């Protein structure tokens, strides 16, 4: 086939190959692309929330209390006559960015601490990892609950609490990655060239330890969405009247005959976590050749 290529055909080739490879990639890793598509759709909907939603999230209309879903109110209304569709969309403006922030911060803090621990060993390693061990000795929700109760109920404190329970997991993961990578020949080569240790860590070791971290980070975005909404559900995260999925489910707790009040925000949590799990699963299939 290569022999029959004309010059002009050869020029067009890269783009076509790129497109064909992308399609093949989509077919081979459907969960990755399905999750990514779901999350992008949510992203767009949430970003356009003020345009997509017909009513502001906190606009009360007591004449329209607890109305069932209809063309006017897609997801029905709550006990103050607020549009649940609008509130679900606006709730996403809290949950998704909060989850991304928590994972990014935990990854940075835990990642750097774990990398230093694994790379330098000795006392630094002991101090950091014992602190991580002790933090991991608490079930995540329980410790997050205690921390956010002490700091007081607010979104920022819920984020702090989530970071406090998540960083040790990254520290452990990255430490073990670094310990393995450290022994590779290219690290020895860099060292023999006279590179400084911190430079080797940042330039050579960390970039090669990415795969499991990426897989875990995708999974954790879903986990943090659950954690933050759980904290709000029990009254420790986002405070009313701000629309947030967990606290919206809590509002529906006593509405046995108005199923829509709790159902739709719950579905929003479910599908966001599902999207993250799909992405993580797809990344694992793609990047981790062992599976």
């Amino acid at each position, binding site marked *: 086939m290569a022999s029959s290529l004309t010059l002009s055909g050869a020029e067009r080739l890269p783009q076509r190959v790129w497109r064909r490879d992308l399609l093949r990639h989509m077919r081979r890793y459907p969960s990755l692309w399905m999750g990514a598509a779901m999350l992008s759709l949510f992203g767009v909907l949430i970003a356009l929330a003020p345009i997509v939603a017909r009513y502001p999230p906190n606009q009360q209309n007591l004449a329209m209390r607890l109305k069932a879903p209809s063309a006017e109110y897609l997801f029905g209304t709550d006990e103050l006559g607020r549009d649940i569709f609008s509130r679900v969309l606006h709730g996403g403006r809290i949950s998704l960015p909060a989850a991304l922030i928590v994972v990014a911060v935990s990854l940075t803090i835990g990642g750097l601490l774990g990398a230093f621990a694994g790379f330098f060993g000795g006392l630094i390693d002991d101090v950091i990892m*014992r*602190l991580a*061990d*002790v*933090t991991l*000795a*608490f*079930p*995540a*929700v*329980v*410790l997050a*609950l*205690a*921390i*956010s*109760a*002490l*700091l007081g109920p607010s979104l920022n404190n819920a984020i702090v609490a989530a970071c406090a329970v998540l960083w040790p997991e990254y520290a452990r993961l990255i430490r073990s990655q670094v310990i393995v990578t450290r022994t590779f020949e290219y690290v020895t080569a860099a060292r023999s060239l006279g590179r400084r240790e911190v430079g080797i860590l940042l330039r050579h070791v960390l970039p090669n330890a990415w795969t499991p971290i990426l897989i875990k980070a995708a999974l954790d975005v*879903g986990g943090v969405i*659950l954690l933050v*909404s*759980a904290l709000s*559900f*029990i*009254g*420790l995260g986002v405070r009313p009247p701000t629309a947030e999925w*967990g606290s919206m*489910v809590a509002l*529906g*707790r006593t509405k*046995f*005959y108005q*199923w829509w009040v*709790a*159902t739709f*925000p*719950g579905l929003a*949590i*479910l*599908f966001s*976590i*599902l999207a993250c*799990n*799909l992405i993580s*699963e797809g990344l694992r299939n793609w990047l981790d050749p062992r599976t």
Partner: protein
Amino acid sequence: MSLVRYIARRLILSVPMLFGITLVLFMIYNIVQVDPLVMIIGERAMDNPQVVEAAIRKWGLDRPIWEQYFTYLTNILRGDLGTSFLTRRPVLDDLRTHLPATIELAVSSLLFAVVLGIPLGIAAGVYFGSLFDRFVWFISLLNGSLPPFWTGLIFLFVFYYSLGIAAGPGRFPPRMDRPPAVTGLLTLDSILDGNMAALGGALSHLLLPTVILGGFTLALVLRVTRAAIVEEMRREYVRTARSKGLAERLVIVRHALRNALLPLITIIGLAFAGLLSGAVMTETVFDWAGIGQYLVRAAASLDYPAIQGGTLLIAIIYVIVNLCVDVLYSILDPRVRHG
């Protein structure tokens, strides 16, 4: 290393861990900008000089911080976790009355996950890539994505309020006499009492929360069993067993499964953390009077001694469970002891 020595070593290693846990809790409470005195006796008692003085003396609040930690530690070792603002009872007594409910729910959820998850995981692993395998994969993915506090509500809506085929919130039918408390586990107490009606009542109330709380663990057990079976079925010893003419069923049960169970033991320790975390939400939804519900109520009303005591208890339980898992693992796989 002999088994006894291994267990002894693991036990000794847990001691610094427990110290670390108390230290972390103590630190968290000292970083927060709330007057520690308020944290111990509550807002309302601040006007009473006698109470204030007694608390300062008891918790050494006029001493340097390391001495305060030491006092805190000795008080814990004496079993004194302070007095709950909410119930006005010693926190330890509160925890003692709430713990059995959580144990009952956690154990039944774990049983549910294991009894259902292992056979399904084996089937999915053996028929790797089949339609059934994909179905199981989808179910476990979905299960891993469900927020338990929401699923609990939906289950209550559907099976209790709408269909009326399941028991409602709470641990026991409200109009029935509870069996005399021996263990605090209502199912076990009913059996000890020989009261089958009470056992039925307790079991019917256990059903929904078990499915909700166990569902998450089920997803985990399923996934790990499946992956382990897939891996083991490719091993050479499986080929050997097949080639000597062993029935496929025996190849799976006697050979592959035994080796696949090892990673499962580790997962069960991990699952237990998930159960304790999930219990916080499940107990709240189902009005289940366990540690989780106690913690949530304490958190909502800023009942500091109760939050601190409850968190400490759960962390200690978790350390003990992990210890048991490690020991069990070392019995099943002696290589660990020599590692």
